[in-house]
């Protein structure tokens, strides 16, 4: 799945970030292959979201660099589409679904000029692709959790970026929407987009993803899911007690998805 010789889609080196005294990430080296669907897994507070946000320069890093397609990430932001956690957003804000998706074209269209016909076409097809075309004129607060996430993913699609970063995209949405969106992300991967997804459901990682980074402040392991998502490695990341499963049950759970 990874073309030989292609640079990693996203790479961080020696990344250290701290909030207050405690490090959230400590000297993390990680790289995510191009054209693959990668997951970042780890317990709560292990720095999964921080890794993505620091890689994009949204939180200041104490040390380390990040690169996208081999270029410093801050100068390659036009190649990245980021879907932040939905809790960060004010849902009563006066904005329609379509206007949210149009934000994905701001960088292409320029900050001040009107959107061109081509931008509007991209927005239309992004809405169509996530099944939200009929709801485009709704105020964003009038949507269900799953529909909001569809709108956010449509905005990322409209960015037409080679790398898509999603932070807990399936938290708090219904199983039907999760399956539909997971399928859509798979289609994007097949079409050549690189994806990095912060994910909490260990069972679906093995079934749906190609590559995984297991994180707990430090990088515990990374590689193809078949090699990384093992009971032994996960126990190291999570601590055995917190999973409450013996090895066999854990293996079964991982393969069940």
């Amino acid at each position, binding site marked *: 799945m990874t073309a030989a010789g292609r640079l990693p889609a996203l790479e961080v080196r020696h990344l250290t970030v701290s909030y207050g005294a405690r490090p959230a990430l400590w000297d993390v080296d990680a790289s995510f292959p191009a054209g693959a669907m990668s997951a970042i897994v780890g317990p709560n507070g292990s720095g999964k979201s921080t890794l993505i946000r620091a890689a994009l320069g949204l939180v200041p890093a104490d040390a380390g660099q990040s690169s996208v397609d081999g270029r410093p990430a801050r100068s390659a932001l036009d190649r990245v589409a980021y879907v932040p956690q939905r809790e960060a957003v004010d849902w009563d*804000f006066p904005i329609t679904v379509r206007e949210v998706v149009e934000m994905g074209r701001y960088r292409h269209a320029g900050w001040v000029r009107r959107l061109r016909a081509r931008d509007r076409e991209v927005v239309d097809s992004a809405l169509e692709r996530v099944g939200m075309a009929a709801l485009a004129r709704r105020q964003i607060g009038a949507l269900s959790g799953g529909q909001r996430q569809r709108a956010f993913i449509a905005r990322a699609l409209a960015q037409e970026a080679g790398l898509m970063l999603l932070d807990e995209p399936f938290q708090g949405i219904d199983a039907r929407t999760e399956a539909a969106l997971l399928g859509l992300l798979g289609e994007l991967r097949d079409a050549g987009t690189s994806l990095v997804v912060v994910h909490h459901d260990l069972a679906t990682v093995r079934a749906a993803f190609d590559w995984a980074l297991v994180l707990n402040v430090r990088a515990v392991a990374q590689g193809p899911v078949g090699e990384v998502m093992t009971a032994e490695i996960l126990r190291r990341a999570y601590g055995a007690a917190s999973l409450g499963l013996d090895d066999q049950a854990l293996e079964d759970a991982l393969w069940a998805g």
Partner: protein
Amino acid sequence: MGGLISLIPLPYPDAVVALGALVLGVTAGVLGAFAVLPRRSLVGDALAHAALPGVCLAFILTGAKDPAALLAGAAVAGLVGAVLIILIERTSRIRPDAAIGVVLSVFFSLGIVLLTAISHSGNAQQAGLERYLFGQAAGLVERDVVVMGLVGAAGLSLVLVLLRPLRAAMFDREFAGSIGLPVRALELATTVLLVAAIVIGLRMVGAILMVAMLVVPAVAARQLTGRLGPLLLVAAGVGALVGVSGALLSARAEAPTGPVVVLVGVLLVVALLLLAPGRGVLWGWARRRRERRRESATALLVDIESLMHAGPPPTLEQVALASARPRPHLRRALRDLDRAGLVAHDGERLRLTESGAAAAHAALERRRLWSAWLEHGWQIGVPGAVEPDPRDLRGSLGDQAADRLERLAREAAA
């Protein structure tokens, strides 16, 4: 300027006041939205209070009541207050609301002390400075309006240029950062916009109540529209309406302008909170009440239907015992059914009419369809991002999906 004022069909002093209030209303209405929407209204309040010592210091330094100098002082003090709020928030563990409270009270106290000192200084020029507390529309002169207009035009042009980045940063800060927008600089820009609005309003509305001119138009406009562009236009209109009517009223009544403007504005906001189409609280109540009554009537319909299956037509008393619902609810539901012609009375006993039986069957059908959805829904594909609505599953999923569900339910039963 003089030409513009002569166009207004009012006596000259009133015309100046009206024009000034118009400039203030439009500017504060639009710029205030950038305090209300990111939930920073109290920052606007703190900055208005913080402007007062700036006015006093400018007077002490220049020794005259030149509007441009006084407002420049207000702007500088407002910006210093804004920077202090941001510094306190970022460098200490003090929360934003506390930081706002501290800056507001410290600056305002300083302003009052300076104001008192000036009034005891014996400077003949000082009379009237205290109008910066509560505002005074009467006595506004053309030169004031010119200064207000220039500051307002600058603020509104900045909004026009930055509208798209500002919208992105206010709605979704994280995303805005990820597409390379300088989010902190934009937040600073919105603060500068607020200070501009405050500087314009200080003379007319006063430091204490200026926040109302910022908040009222945006809140009123949000009741009427769910999009930012129209919201800014409506807020400008509301600001103009509230500002002009409040200023003229206060000038006639020789009352301080601030309180009059606030009272006019609050009347408007209360009316819109209650009555705005879609968002009005009253409509919400009425809608919920209607839905409860409809559900209650449908439940009675279904109860009568099932009791009629079990035996002779029931009395209301028997329905009450079977359904364990309070009798007043049942009596009201029965009145609704009567009015719709769905039940017939045989003395005490209740029967469903033909249309009543059809309605009861339709209600049962909807319940069965929902059960089928819960049981077999995972097997059928649903187009797009539709949300199943228990009360009208067929309407929300479409006929095709509903037919498939019914088929699956029949196959499972067979």
